[in-house]
């Protein structure tokens, strides 16, 4: 698809009922990548639900569900090259998993263990989850600057929520991306709710993609529940960045079907009818209808997939539950490259305190 810098335009191939509404480009007609995407989204939906369950049963801490937002991360993960760098926000289970971050590590992260950020393989240069809103966007601009300085054909991709587009970091980063012509892709996950603040109270801008106009970078909206539109749009932006043709902002329109986090109760601030309606638009159902209609997917395959997915998740949960708490020394040993003397004394104190606490239990 040809993108323009008209930010009003919202790209969509697959409508909520699984009907094709635009002609598919040849390279997107192949069933393999669609089946791959479908399997991944189902995997993520089940794992995400397991994460919520693990929080409810006390195995992990507060957790932000990505229910209904699985397509965005899936498209990102499928698009990014190994040598690109991903700077996530904190609802990026789907993309991180495709970057090779294991389920066990994601459980460690949300379960209070910094080793969950010690990514390996493809993700080894990726940033960890970013909780302070929008700060990852300036980091991604810095990463893109590093690529440009070294004249590397790589791209930095970052995600943020709709609320993040109100923050200074977001504006300052996209402004720099325009001024410096950076190989940066910003995917705004517009799920319509920044905790309790709805999109229409966040900004008077007609679309979030409009914000890129002032920064002088190309932007467009895509249906964030349509894996095909997402994949096409993100692929366009990533290719463009890697070719040295500058930055792109993509507003992916989706809906947060879950509470903000497990510590939130969205029924306090948004009507149930709105959530029920949004369920009609979710990304997995429409793709399943489409795949089934194409005779690429069957009920039998579905059952088989769910079984595989649950086994994989259970394996990871078992691994996570068998992981011992990290040694107390780790609190100190990674703060600086070399432990400064005053901290060495505190490290001894922490060890002694830990040993005393252990004796008490």
């Amino acid at each position, binding site marked *: 698809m040809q993108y323009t810098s008209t930010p009003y335009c919202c790209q969509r191939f697959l409508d909520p009922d699984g009907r094709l509404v635009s002609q598919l480009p040849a390279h997107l007609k192949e069933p393999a990548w669609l089946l791959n995407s479908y399997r991944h989204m189902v995997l993520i939906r089940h794992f995400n639900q397991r994460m919520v369950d693990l929080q409810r049963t006390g195995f992990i801490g507060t957790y932000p569900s990505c229910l209904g937002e699985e397509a965005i991360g899936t498209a990102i993960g499928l698009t990014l090259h190994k040598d690109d*760098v991903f*700077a996530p926000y904190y609802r990026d289970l789907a993309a991180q998993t495709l970057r090779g971050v294991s389920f066990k590590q994601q459980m460690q992260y949300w379960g209070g263990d*910094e*080793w969950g*950020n*010690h*990514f390996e393989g493809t993700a*080894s*240069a990726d*940033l*960890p989850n970013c*909780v*302070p809103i929008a*700060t990852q*966007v*300036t*980091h*991604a*601009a*810095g*990463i*893109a*600057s*590093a*690529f440009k*300085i070294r004249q590397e054909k790589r791209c*930095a991709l970052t995600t943020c929520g709709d609320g993040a587009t109100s923050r*200074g*970091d977001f504006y*300052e*980063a996209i*402004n*720099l991306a325009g*001024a410096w012509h950076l190989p940066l892709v910003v995917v705004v996950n517009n799920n319509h709710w920044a905790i309790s603040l709805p999109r229409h109270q966040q900004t008077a801008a007609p679309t979030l993609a409009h914000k890129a106009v002032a920064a002088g970078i190309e932007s467009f909206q895509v249906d964030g529940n349509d894996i095909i539109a997402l994949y096409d749009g993100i692929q366009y932006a990533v290719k463009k960045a890697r070719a040295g043709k500058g930055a792109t902002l993509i507003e992916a329109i989706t809906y947060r079907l879950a509470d903000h986090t497990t510590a939130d109760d969205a029924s306090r601030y948004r009507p149930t009818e709105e959530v029920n309606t949004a369920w009609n638009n979710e990304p997995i159902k429409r793709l399943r209808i489409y795949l089934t209609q194409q005779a690429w997917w069957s009920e039998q395959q579905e059952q088989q997939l769910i079984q595989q997915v649950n086994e994989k998740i259970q394996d990871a949960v078992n691994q996570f539950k068998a992981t011992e708490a990290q040694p107390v020394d*780790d609190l100190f040993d*990674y*703060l*600086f*490259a070399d432990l*400064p*003397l*005053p*901290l060495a004394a505190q490290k001894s104190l922490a060890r002694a305190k830990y040993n005393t606490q252990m004796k008490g239990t």
Partner: protein
Amino acid sequence: MGSQERGSQESLGNENSDISGSSMAPIKAVNLLEAVNLALHRAMESDENVVVLGEDIATNGGVFRATAGLKERFGRRRVMDTPLGETMIAGVAVGMATQQLRPVAEIQFMGFIYSTLEHLISHAARMRNRTRGRLSCPLVIRAPYGGGIHAPEHHSESMEALFAHIPGLRVVIPSSPTRAYGLLLSAIEEPDPVVFLEPKRIYRLSKQNLRDDGLGLPLDTCFTLRQGKDITLISWGAMIHETLKAADVLATQGVRAEVIDVATLAPMDLDTMILSIQKTGHGVVIQEAPRHCGVAAEIAASITERAFGYLRHPIQRVTGFDTPMPYYQHENLYLPSVTDIVDAAKRTLGML
């Protein structure tokens, strides 16, 4: 353990003493600002991953000229004028540093540094820790700071304590051209983030002979600038000059003051200060910053915890007031004076 200043005792009289160096690099008489500029040139020369960014730093060479000549020498790709936005400068430096660059970012004045705090606290200072060593953040944020040059509002504060309070962050402050050169080189080579605060009142105060040999000075260590057995005077940055003058005045009254330049405020070399206090039994800590929760308070408390039995008088502080830095008509009232330091020392010694 603290470093002895190379050469003999430092006072205002021997600012021109050479520092020794092994290379045959020429010796030049430079002020603190020129020393910063030399160190930046040297660091960029020896490591292609060092990049410099900030507002007005490339074509203009910085509002104080600290980065003059870098763009001409190393090109626009490595010496970057940024759009105006300190949050972005800090965030971009974090991003660069996670990808093997060594950014040295200038914040034009400390008064504009506050919006970088989020990136320093939440990211730079903990990137290594939160990724358990997978990523690190070898960046330097340089900023001129402190009063005494009759600058406009928001240009004269000493807020070093804000940074010293952040776990994982190094805070380094030079007090002479040779230390500016050596400490900045080490800060840039350091694998972890450093806030490098340059006392602008002494940017052009005096010159020292400096050999541009690329040798760094140790971080995390105090410099004992002057030996004495009666009282320990502890300070950093521009206040070192008043402190050395006070030591001269005290000497005329028979008091031999030891003068310690803390230099790295975090992590702090308390051992050197405590050894000195064990010898002298008396201490005064001098800072330009406001008193409440300042670095002087941390030093006084730590010495009291660890060397109470040696103290013959409570540690005294000489500080700015807990008011905003006044506009420049009254800035000399705000800044600790030589007399303030001499009086505090004499009170401590029971001479007043």
